């Protein structure tokens, strides 16, 4: 019916706007039973670092009202293992593979990006500068604009892949962070990562997470995420990947209207393993009911 769902993220073209949020879709394999991966806009894998990491002790997750806290602590198999053991599976599919990565220092970011840049079968990089689960001093990558500019522009130098910077919502001014990422050379931004939260078990008097605090995700944070996407949209010209509490097509459309060019489903996958496909179908139905021929028309179309 001639509907155009395609999305441009820098040089990268997605066939449709439905992506997976890093850390919620593993390396794709587990969900391939529920979702025809070839139908996704792109797959974003669990955050990787140069070396494998064992992550935080359990308990690592706890449910909260309409949301969940996680403190996985960036457990991952490391870039080398990913390339050897996980990437071959993903290469079978025709969709872009986007690798989410992070480092403990600027030089680690650079090394990781350089290594990923050389690897065939990786189509874009998503820099996580915002994960709140790490120790003191680290969160500065995503909250101090000067440091953000530095780390993003250094990474920009070592990769010609589409570079997405994933922003932390735990800041006073998200649009400043968005602008900083744009100025430093990002091709796109992901908005938002998790809000830092905490839950206490009043029976034991102990935090419910071994890590004490964790990242809040799920429907509870959707209003904050939509607002941040809208603020970023008013500020930057690079495309925005919207995420935070998307579990239905209606949610996804809210993000498009607020200014997102693409969206990612995170916690929604846990609630419904087929969420991404249901959302894609729902977006199509909405567009045809509204007579919208091109998805690009929806981006930022909120009438304020």
């Amino acid at each position, binding site marked *: 019916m001639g509907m155009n769902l395609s999305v441009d993220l820098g040089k990268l073209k997605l066939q449709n706007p439905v992506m997976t949020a890093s850390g919620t879709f593993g390396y794709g394999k*587990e969900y391939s039973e529920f979702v025809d991966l070839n139908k996704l806009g792109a797959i974003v894998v669990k955050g990787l670092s140069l070396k494998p990491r064992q992550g935080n002790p*359990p308990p690592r997750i706890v449910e909260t009202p309409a949301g969940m806290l996680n403190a996985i602590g960036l457990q991952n198999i490391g870039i080398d293992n990913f390339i050897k053991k996980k990437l071959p599976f993903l290469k079978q599919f025709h969709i872009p593979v986007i690798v989410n990565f992070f480092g403990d220092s600027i030089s680690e970011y650079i090394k990781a990006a350089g290594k990923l840049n050389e690897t065939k079968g990786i189509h874009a990089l998503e820099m996580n500068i915002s994960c709140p689960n790490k120790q003191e001093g680290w969160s500065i990558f995503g909250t101090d604009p000067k440091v953000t500019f530095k780390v993003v522009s250094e990474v920009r130098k070592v990769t010609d892949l589409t570079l997405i910077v994933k922003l932390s919502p735990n800041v006073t001014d998200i649009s400043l962070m968005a602008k900083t990422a744009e100025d430093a050379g990002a091709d796109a931004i992901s908005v938002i990562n998790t809000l830092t939260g905490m839950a206490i078990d009043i029976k034991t008097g102990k935090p419910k997470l071994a890590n004490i605090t964790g990242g809040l995700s799920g429907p509870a944070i959707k209003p904050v995420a939509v607002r941040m996407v809208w603020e970023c949209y008013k500020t930057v010209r690079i495309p925005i990947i919207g995420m935070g509490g998307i579990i239905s097509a209606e949610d996804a459309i809210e993000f498009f209207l607020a200014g997102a060019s693409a969206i990612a489903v995170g916690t929604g996958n846990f609630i419904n393993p087929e969420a991404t496909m249901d959302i894609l179908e729902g977006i199509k139905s909405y567009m045809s009911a509204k007579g919208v021929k091109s998805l690009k028309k929806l981006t930022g179309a909120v009438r304020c």
Partner: protein
Amino acid sequence: MNRLFKATVTDNKQIKKDHYLLTLHPFKKINRPEPGNFFMLSVDSSLDPLLKRPFSMHRWLGFDFQILYRVAGKGTGILSKRRPGDLLDVVGPLGNKFPVAKTHDKIILIAGGLGIAPIFSLAEKLKKNKHLLFYGAMTKEELLCIDELKSLGIEPVIATDDGTLGYKGVITDILKKFLTQNSKLKTQNYLYACGPKPMLMALSLLARKYDLKGYMALEQNMACGLGTCLGCVVNTVDGYKRVCKEGPVFRIEEIVWE
């Protein structure tokens, strides 16, 4: 086969104070669940509770299956109000199973509290003469499935914390007595256990002391149930492992209790 399916509640019976037996009729043929496997159930379409809840396969009825559960909080509270005809979203069967080798001479099953849910399915699968079941609970009122066990020809060794039925004491103490009295039992046997953490910790000590091998099914908070969120790990001698994927059944000796 895609393990996401809808199921109709055909029965949801209160069998003891806080305990219910749920019978589900899947809309499609599902993979046969093995003892140790579990299902993730949406108790509701509301966003609160948000996540699916994990429950062990308790009884496989050929096409339908049963879940034995206790009202522990909000999600199970809502589940207990589901009535015949209600629909639930389910993912499963998930996780690994109790690996029962043919060569094991005699098998000792140990269930504590709701641990009987999966242990029952294992007992049902095994020949009755091949195993001994130790079953403990806080009180007589919390002992479940006694009649069903009997009709399978199984006479469990029972202990209750308050002595209202069977031995008085915790089930691992009773097991210990048995082990000291029947030294033969020790080496030729495999333990298969499920129950609360203190019981499993005591069992681990016992297993180490008497050099017993075996398996236990663990629990952990879960989000995805599919191995992707890395939320449900437990510490093992080989590092963190996911309860939903490498488990819920682990070798007794591999678990590192903190």
